[in-house]
């Protein structure tokens, strides 16, 4: 196989895993689910962007960021600002004291569009800002932290503080941001109604392709020398530094990549759900996003997608079925994952699923002769190899 292609696909194993996930997301879900449920899956998949980013920076880079909601939120807010401006044309806001500005600004006695909002009239600028704003912030945080060799738990705490600061800022500046309510009632994208079932379907596929794009970029990074350096840094940072590598730059790079992925997710969220609010920026949602990656398996890019899907589906299912009890059930699920499957779904697949598949293959190869029980290797007799195909 072409070596560059191989890097993207991650070998035969990786290609099969990718194909399975692609079939699930691009074929099975759209055929099996109605428009409403499919839109919900689309929403779950926006969180998968964050989880994929976390696999890169936490699973491989060893940088546990508890503030990914910041980047998700910034991406989402940039997109929401563009959509809100479009929804606030003078005609549909003529009941306000100042028509033509977003409704929440009018409630806050603002009489003209603030300077910060002006450039978001342009879609091109918005697309640029969706990526650039979070990445620049990540760059500043990264340079400030990693160049000073702040790492581990201290870094996690700082990211958490940033999540809190940004939430307070957004809520406090409600004339500029919509405050606690967030930016709501988004209607059209360049005249295209994003609330229709048909446009939701299109957005779902755009979302899915962007997600696969991110996964492939992630694979490429991990398969390159950079990926191996990341793992080396995670395990023995000093050795890498003594070998002459600039450890901080690698960390900053992977942190920025994770921020960019999260921001794309945030922007797609604003498009598919139709609003953005500070409740995605704070500490709690940021930690939830880490849980997606943990449940899926923090060493597996594909696992992260399954994790985001599973946890969010669980949330929806439990809360619909047991509206009074569901938080306890979710809590129980997380505890169970951490205690019994520390490597998440992907780890479970590596340790049990693959073996089970192999057994199935062997059995079907010799169907006439039933395999005597004694010859089947006991699960524990083989050395546990947690081979990680990213």
């Amino acid at each position, binding site marked *: 196989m072409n070596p560059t292609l191989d890097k993207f696909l991650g070998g035969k194993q990786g290609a099969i895993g990718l194909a399975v996930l692609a079939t699930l997301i691009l074929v099975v879900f759209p055929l099996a689910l109605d428009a409403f449920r499919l839109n919900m899956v689309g929403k779950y998949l926006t969180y998968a962007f964050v989880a994929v980013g976390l696999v890169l920076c936490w699973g491989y880079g060893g940088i546990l960021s508890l503030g990914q909601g910041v980047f998700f939120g910034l991406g989402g807010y940039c997109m929401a600002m563009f959509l809100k401006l479009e929804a606030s044309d003078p005609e549909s806001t003529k009941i306000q*004291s100042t028509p033509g500005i977003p409704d929440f600004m009018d*409630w806050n006695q603002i009489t003209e569009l603030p300077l910060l909002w002006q450039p978001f009239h342009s879609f091109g600028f918005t697309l640029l800002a969706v990526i650039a704003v979070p990445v620049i912030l990540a760059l500043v945080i990264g340079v400030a932290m990693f160049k000073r060799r702040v790492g581990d738990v201290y870094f996690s705490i700082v990211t958490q503080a940033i999540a809190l600061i940004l939430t307070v800022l957004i*809520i406090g500046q409600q004339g500029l941001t919509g405050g606690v*309510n967030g930016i709501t009632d988004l209607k059209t994208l360049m005249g295209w109604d994003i609330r229709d079932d048909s446009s939701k379907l299109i957005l779902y596929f755009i979302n899915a392709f962007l997600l696969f794009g991110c996964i492939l970029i992630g694979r490429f990074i991990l398969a390159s020398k950079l990926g191996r350096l990341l793992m080396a840094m995670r395990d023995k940072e000093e050795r890498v530094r003594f070998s002459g590598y600039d450890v901080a730059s690698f960390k900053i790079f992977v942190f920025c990549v994770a921020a960019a992925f999260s921001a794309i997710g945030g922007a797609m969220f604003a498009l598919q759900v139709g609003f953005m609010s500070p409740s995605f920026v704070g500490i709690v949602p940021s930690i939830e996003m880490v849980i997606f990656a943990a449940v899926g398996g923090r060493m597996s890019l594909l696992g992260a997608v399954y994790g985001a899907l599973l946890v969010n589906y669980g949330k929806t299912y439990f809360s*619909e079925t047991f509206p009074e009890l569901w938080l306890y059930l979710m809590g129980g699920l997380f505890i169970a994952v951490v205690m019994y499957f520390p490597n998440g779904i992907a780890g479970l697949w590596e340790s049990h699923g693959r073996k089970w598949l192999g057994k199935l293959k062997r059995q079907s190869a010799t169907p006439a002769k039933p395999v005597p029980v004694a010859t089947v290797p006991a699960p524990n007799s083989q050395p546990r190899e947690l081979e990680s195909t990213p």
Partner: protein
Amino acid sequence: MDSRPSRFLPRRLALGAAALSLLAASVFSQMALADEANTTGLAVTDTEVTVGQLHSATGTMAISETGSIQAERLAIEQINASGGILGRQIKIIQEDGASDWPTFAEKAKKLLVGDKVAAVFGCWTSASRKAVLPVFEKENGLLYYPTFYEGLEQSKNVIYTGQEATQQILAGLDWIAKEKGAKTFYLIGSDYIWPRTSMKIARKHIENVLGGEVVGEEYYPLGNTQFGSLINKVKLKKPDVVFTAVVGGSNVAFYKQMKAAGVTSAKQTLLTLSVTEDELLGIGGENMEGFYASMKYFQSLDNPNNAAFVEAFKAKFGKDSVIGDVTQAAYLGPWLWKAAVEKAGSFDVDKVAAASPGIELTTAPEGYVKVHDNHHLWSKTRIGEVQKDGQFKVVFESDLIEPNPFPKGYQ
């Protein structure tokens, strides 16, 4: 192998026949459903109508929204016991908004698109209402919203059973200016849309109508618990009235610190927009004794409707339960819906919404209410004085006030 097709064929025939009859049955039942009471495919059968209930059963807002959940259930139970609506019993699907605005939007969509409910009783905070509003307008649902709120909104798909800001504020300010000769006011609120809009209206009214003066206006983040410097400023400025719209957990800290600093009703007049019997449970009546609240309903209202309501509520949810303004407004929702459906003779959202203006309720615990063309309620505003036992003594009752969500001269 030879016998297989012959064995298979009758089975396929049988399957086909079954499928056909199923199809026919579903077509017929569709036709039976599509009588004039339901032409838009809502979840209405000949014996049952499904409605949704969408509040926070979990999270930080659960403590406030539980009263609304209970009141709506009580009302629906009573309606069912008295024969239902158009001969149909009401079935409730409850969803949890989890104090999280996106979840509210998701669940609203699920109720309207998935469950096809005929009406939804729900939401509490403005943020949750703002999150679900586009969903209700897009999917053409009907929401009964119980909380007093900032106004500046009017939707064909929402019936607002609480008061909008001018109803709650103006009568209260007029009363305190007349009764206490108040000229100077200190405005204090939590920092979000409802307090800010309320204070904007209050300031305009104080300055332009009452000829008074606002000597201070301050906002604190939601959940703030440090009010020391604010209380010092209040002591220094000595306003005739402290006018507050502090919400949630901040309330408890604010009033306890006021009392600890010696700012009690003996020295300071205070009027609040945000303390009901529910909040008083947390604050403690002794910490607020003698302060005033401006609301449309207090549990202590003395009329036969209210006596029956309080008794039924306590019989169902325990004798220690208290009933605040929003709980009563939530109780009105199902009754207003019933009246509108019966007037329209249909569950269709458009017809019910069109039939709603003009609906009167003489059995409301707060007395008499009437739905305005703008989907808000005509209601009276009362001033209650906090008692030690956590109840209010009603000291003033206004005339029926017209709802005016877009007040001219106050924006």
